[in-house]
């Protein structure tokens, strides 16, 4: 039971991170980003290549990987998303799906479909009250918590407030001297780094394959839905809850029920409380 919950919290913190990245882009630029997980998958593979191929230490490879993640997101935002942002919402969502496909294909072409494992310095485990806890699990949950707190603090800074203003209305903030370009670039850059962390944690605790992105993307969206898409805390708690629920279902119902939990969670939450467990009600476009 406790073992299941602990591994659930670990997987849940990856979902939380993905949900945080999704919510960050959505809050700032109002784009549900279906390419979010792939934007972390490519840099995670780069980290693997740096450690395994170039024999770099983890402490050096990870910052390089984060920079690659940031650069990739900024480039995608600039070249694929921003030119069509003025057109309509529909096109932007589809463009993120196209970006997803392109990055995934590139990862497959460069690294193949063979599963990899990122070597990390957090091997080993310790025992608390009879429960074995791996350091890797502790690192995952701590990273998720740190990113959440960081984002809450960030949204209180002037740039963070500008971001939320731009999400509500792209015209008025500009009249007040807010650079919409800076806001977009910053949110995508941050989200790219967070997605990289999510894929990195998954890649060093379990395995890294070209399929990790799509799996984590759906979990991230489910977690964000649970959290209502507007709340940072909600997205974080939603991810943890999803991870724990999945692991408990996998252990006590059947292995195959694990996948069903995510969809079930979406249907139930949207039916009972459509704004998510932590969301605010809002009607747009009057």
């Amino acid at each position, binding site marked *: 039971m406790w073992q299941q919950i602990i591994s659930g919290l670990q997987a849940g913190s990856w979902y939380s991170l993905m949900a945080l990245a999704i919510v960050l882009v959505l809050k700032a630029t109002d784009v*549900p980003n*279906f390419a979010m997980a792939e934007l972390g998958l490519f840099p995670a593979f780069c980290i693997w290549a740096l450690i395994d191929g170039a024999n770099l230490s983890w402490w050096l490879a990870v910052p390089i990987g984060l920079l690659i993640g940031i650069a990739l997101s900024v480039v995608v935002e600039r070249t*694929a998303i921003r*030119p*069509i942002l003025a*057109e*309509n*919402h*529909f*096109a932007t*969502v*589809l*463009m993120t*799906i*196209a*970006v*997803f*496909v*392109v990055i*995934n*294909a*590139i990862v*497959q*072409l460069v690294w193949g479909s063979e599963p990899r494992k990122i070597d990390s310095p957090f091997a080993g485990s310790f025992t608390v009250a009879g429960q074995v806890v791996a350091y890797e699990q502790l690192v995952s949950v701590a990273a998720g918590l740190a990113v959440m707190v960081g984002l809450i603090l960030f949204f209180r800074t002037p740039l963070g407030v500008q971001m939320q203003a731009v999400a509500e209305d792209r015209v008025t903030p500009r009249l007040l001297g807010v650079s919409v370009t800076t806001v977009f670039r910053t949110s995508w850059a941050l989200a790219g780094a967070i997605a990289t962390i999510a894929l990195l944690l998954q890649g060093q605790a379990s395995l890294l394959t070209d399929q990790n992105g*799509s799996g984590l993307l*759906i979990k991230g*969206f*489910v977690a964000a*839905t649970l959290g209502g898409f507007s709340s940072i805390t909600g997205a974080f708690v939603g991810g943890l809850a999803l991870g724990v629920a999945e692991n408990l279902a996998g252990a006590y119902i059947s292995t*195959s029920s694990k*996948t*069903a939990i*995510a*969809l079930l969670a*979406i*249907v139930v*939450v*949207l*039916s009972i409380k*459509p704004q998510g467990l932590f969301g605010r009600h809002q*009607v*747009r*476009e*009057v």
Partner: protein
Amino acid sequence: MTPFAVFSGSPWRIAGAAGALAAALVLLALPGLVNPYLLFQACLVMVTATAGLGLVLIMGWSGQIALSQAGFLGVGAYATTYLVAQGWAWPLAAVTAGLIAALFGVLIGLPATRLRGFYLAIATLAFAELMIRVFVEATPITGGIAGTAVEAVVLPGIDVDGSRWYLCLGVAAVTTAVVIRIGRVGLGRRLRVVRDAEIAAPSLGVSPMRTKLLAFALSAFIGGIAGALYAQCLSYLTPEIFDMGLLIEFLIVAFLGGVGYVTGPFLGAVVVVVLRDLLQDLGSWQRLGYGLILALAIAFLPRGLASLPDRLRARRPAPPAPEPPPVSGPADLTGAAR
């Protein structure tokens, strides 16, 4: 005098009607005109276009993003195959499979259509992923990973290839007629009201939720029927046929073709089937190609290939009496998916 200005003149109408008649005759005589391989490709075009017509309803007209068409195709394919194996007649099995797909559509859409557009995108994406798992696990019906063979439908007096073609052609024609009809009657108008002015819709007596849900159920039904046909083309079903790759092909069908036009899915289907044939041995390069095509189509041709005649016409100095655009006209996607 440019060619388009006289298009509404009656000689041109007659020529157009004659052209349509000739095209219909060619399609009907196709099994005698081309080799079985080309005929098979033509079947795939019809099936893909039929599934794409479902997307015209939900994405083009109601402005909702649905990512589940590959899943509905799977439901339709497996359900039809299973029912036919139980001794059902194929048409009855196919319609039942369509209804099952529509039921799934309502279950997924019920919560999501109450909310902003992208909730449906997420719920349908999750559904499509879940369906792959179901196809793998439900071994008694689907044969699991190993797959299941499809019994070919043979029409009296026609060989297997010909039967498959007439089946695909017939279903595609009926679906096209139904979708055109829907575009012209109240439902089509309600869908566009919901797409363009969702918050104002209730004041016109239109329930956005019910309208969106109906569109989604119809779209799922068409997807299920297309799946029944797809099974006929494939003759052997395995779960991975219906994965992300198929979804991406449908997005290309819908958006390269033009999601606001009934002709769009047919144009898109031709492109996808030809591409699939050319690139089938290239693995990941094929996916890369698909992704780039989708991105370029969205960036440079947001209303798809089917919008090109309208665009050409719009570029000329105002013609005296422009031909009314087919069914819905260009999808004004502004405000879609809000």
